[in-house]
């Protein structure tokens, strides 16, 4: 039961933080018309379709690298935990023998 309460708390806090961070996008619904906005703001978005495509390719490439690195790290964590537990077990066994 306690674990469920903890998970609910975590979920509520994560949602709250996401709402706070993503508020600028929610607000876009109540923004003035696009033409009016464009005249006020300088937007540094990519200039042509080539640059736009390059950005999406770059994002995909970044996430691919991140996922590969995460996979390698998960393997490393499993190994590190296994080695640590082995040491721990040996210590317990030695204590019992004494």
């Amino acid at each position, binding site marked *: 039961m306690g674990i469920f309460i903890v998970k609910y708390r975590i979920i509520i806090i994560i949602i709250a*933080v996401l709402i*706070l961070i993503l508020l600028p996008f929610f607000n876009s619904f109540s923004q003035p018309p696009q033409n009016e906005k464009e005249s006020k703001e300088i937007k*540094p978005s990519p200039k042509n379709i080539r640059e736009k495509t390059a950005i999406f390719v770059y994002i995909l490439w970044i996430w691919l690298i991140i996922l590969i690195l995460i996979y390698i790290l998960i393997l490393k964590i499993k190994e590190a935990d296994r080695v640590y537990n082995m040491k721990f077990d040996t210590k317990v066994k030695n204590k019992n023998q004494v």
Partner: protein
Amino acid sequence: MDKSLKKIRDWFYDRTGFDEFLAFLKKKEVPCHSYTIWYYMGGAILILFLFQCITGIMLLLYYKPTIETAHKSVIGIMNDVPLGWIIRSFHRWSAYFMIAFVFIHLFSTLILKAYRKPREVTWITGCLLFITTLAFGFTGYLLPWDELSLAATKVGTDIPRSIPIVGEWITKLLRGGDDVTGDTLTRFFALHVCVLPLFILAILGIHFILIQKHGMSIPISIQRKKNSLRKIPFYPNFFYRELIFWMLIFGIVITLSLLFPATLGKEADLMAPTPKGVKPEWYFLFFFQTLKLFPSRILFIPGDTFAILLILIFGIIFFLLPFIDRKPHGRSGKIITYLTYVFLIYVIIMTIWGYLS
């Protein structure tokens, strides 16, 4: 390992003592329980601070802090400097995430009562880091010198004026005069790139030393359980887990920076009237909305003075919480936890209200 590489490594360890540092990290243990996720927040703030430093230095190479050149130099960064707009966007998004994680870290510390004895000073340094982070946000907001940032700074620097006796002086000190001018921009720039970084590094150092001294705090509910607590070494077991979290943060920040780049408003004009609907950044909205709730006069005191005094008292209580919550296990401790939840909900509601109003 290759012999020559081993020689270089041994030389490096011998001269720097880095092997002793690694041995220390391997010896350092992190408790493993259902609340362990909250231990990652401090590391997340640290990596985001590092992102801030790197992108901040890059922006510093092209930014010119005078009222004639500030806005133009930011346009130059966005349009002429190769990848400049990405660096600026990354700086802004990582700042948003850093502040969000500081809030999470603060509230998780509050709810888990990690401030209890013997970590009172750690809590105080954490509060100082929280204020410094907000100060970073406030001073950085003016630097692009667009009309919204000027108006928000005018409103923001006007708030301390309501404090009795010292209020007027604080406002003048912040602005470098009676009004927001080029002097304010110079002051904010100096604060943002020199004073605040030095201050945050000093406090961060003390915060780390204290964490090393006292170790990670274990929540009361876990401490009460009689069965022995599982612990894992900081290096490599916990550090690898943190690396995964850091990479995810990097991925999210860079994606948002590319898809939703930071924009820039019209150049600030000191003579122009304040535009309608000026709002501060999202992390100040709850504070801004709270001030708006107060009537113009309460008893014999002006409403804004009353609000500022109330917020100051609340801030002092918050700062000294470990000394007030002397029995975190008892009934008073539980009441403080419930009040924390109420405060958290209040902050969220006020922020949303402030944004939509």
